[in-house]
């Protein structure tokens, strides 16, 4: 325990050290005009902009986070539901998978115009787009998890008269949880991308929309802020899922890190 705390503190120290060096180098090269501000703004300029436009940035960030969470929850729930439907039926998997894979192989920018045509460019359309981008990894890993059970355990229980419903909910679902979370963690990071792209291609809210405007204006300060904020959102959501996983499936956590 002690050793663990120490290494954690050391990691934090190394992180701050690394960040300080990066920021110092960045500030040094941009402040004196070695790199012109319209190519790369200085950290101090970015910081000033962050304070000045705090309200605007917060409002758009909030809209984006809502889109991400809404779409991610919808996509993940749909993936889990479909996985439960597909796990017992090999033929159904072979029937459904090609379409799911085909859908996922399409760049989301080709799908977005259709979604915007059908549902409009509001919040619900963006949620659907995020759901589409975040649905696939969870589906694949959850199906795998539901099928990849300890067959000896299933046999022990079946011999004692366990029904297939019992095996599904008391054995397959718990053993699939680690797989489910592995997929969901990949999906949540994809959801951030999906949300920003959706906002760029429709509607007038969110960090993606703000990024589009800022691109037209060559407003590199704001573009940088958006990049950093998006990264932080993705990181926090990833870690949040890790926290939930530790609560829901603690037996698996001991051996894993991320």
């Amino acid at each position: 325990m002690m050793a663990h705390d120490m290494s954690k503190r050391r990691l934090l120290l190394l992180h701050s050290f690394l960040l300080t060096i990066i920021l110092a180098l960045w500030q040094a090269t941009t402040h004196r005009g070695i790199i012109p501000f319209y190519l790369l703004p200085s950290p101090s300029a970015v910081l000033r902009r962050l304070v000045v436009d705090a309200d605007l940035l917060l409002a758009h960030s909030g809209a984006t986070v809502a889109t991400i969470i809404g779409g991610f929850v919808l996509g993940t729930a749909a993936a889990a539901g479909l996985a439960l439907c597909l796990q017992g039926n090999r033929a159904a998997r072979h029937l459904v998978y090609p379409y799911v894979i085909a859908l996922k192989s399409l760049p989301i920018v080709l799908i977005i115009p259709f979604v915007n045509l059908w549902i409009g460019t509001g919040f619900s359309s963006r949620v659907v787009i995020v759901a589409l981008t975040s649905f696939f990894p969870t589906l694949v890993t959850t199906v795998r998890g539901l099928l990849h059970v300890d067959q000896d355990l299933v046999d022990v229980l079946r011999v004692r008269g366990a029904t297939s419903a019992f095996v599904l909910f008391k054995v397959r679902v718990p053993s699939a949880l680690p797989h489910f979370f592995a997929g969901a963690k990949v999906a949540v990071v994809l959801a951030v991308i999906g949300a920003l792209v959706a906002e760029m291609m429709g509607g007038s809210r969110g960090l993606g929309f703000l990024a589009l405007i800022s691109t037209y204006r060559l407003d590199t300060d704001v573009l940088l802020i958006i990049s950093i904020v998006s990264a932080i959102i993705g990181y926090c959501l990833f870690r949040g899922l890790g926290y939930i996983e530790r609560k829901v499936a603690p037996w698996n956590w001991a051996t894993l890190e991320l």
Partner: protein
Amino acid sequence: MAAALQRAVITATDLAVDVRLNAIRTVRIVTSIDLVVHASEYTVLMGPSGTGKTTILRALCDCLSLSASVTGTAWRTDDVAVVWQRPALMPWRSALSNVLVEESLRSAKGSLADRAQLLFQHLYLRGIESKSPAELSAGMAQRVALARALAARPAAYLLDEPLSSVDVPQKEAIEIWLRDFVLGESSGVLHVTHDPYEAVFLADRIYVLGGTPATIQSTLTINAPRRNAAFRASAAFAAYVAQLRTLLPTP
């Protein structure tokens, strides 16, 4: 023997198991197996590793893989419990909760808490009730798996090397208790092992498996009314072990 008057709980008649390797090749693992286990009878299935002891056990409880096919009859009572070589516990449940899983399988039995407590005591599992399977040693996990089967109080047991990871003194103590416990409840046991000492100590009858495909090459009946430390130390025990060794195929 009194056992002859009891009803059979497990029977195999002219049992053979074929495993399909690919579209054209099928290999016969075991053939012409005839065995019977009556209620209140402890039988042991012995043989070298890889002969097909586990295959017979799996055929008897319908747990073979899809590539295997069974001919002849493999019958057992519906009320049977198995222990595999691997403990196969639920990692998300505590040791005690794993043993109590039977409560949610056959509702009529009610609470098994008292029985579980008794089993934990006799299998030297006291104090680990709330531990998760990941925290258990191999020997402990194996005893929890045995406790899970015993908790069900079935009419028949199929045990596949249930004590292979348990240390010798503990194993010998458990053997003394186990035999009396299951026979006292009129259950029949088919116990797979490759340890001749374990086989002689526990069994009323030992089936020795050998050959390719494997068949039952000999049957040894152990006549000893009391199975205790004195029996294990006796000349009769040593003689039975020596006799059993002559029946086992040489490597």
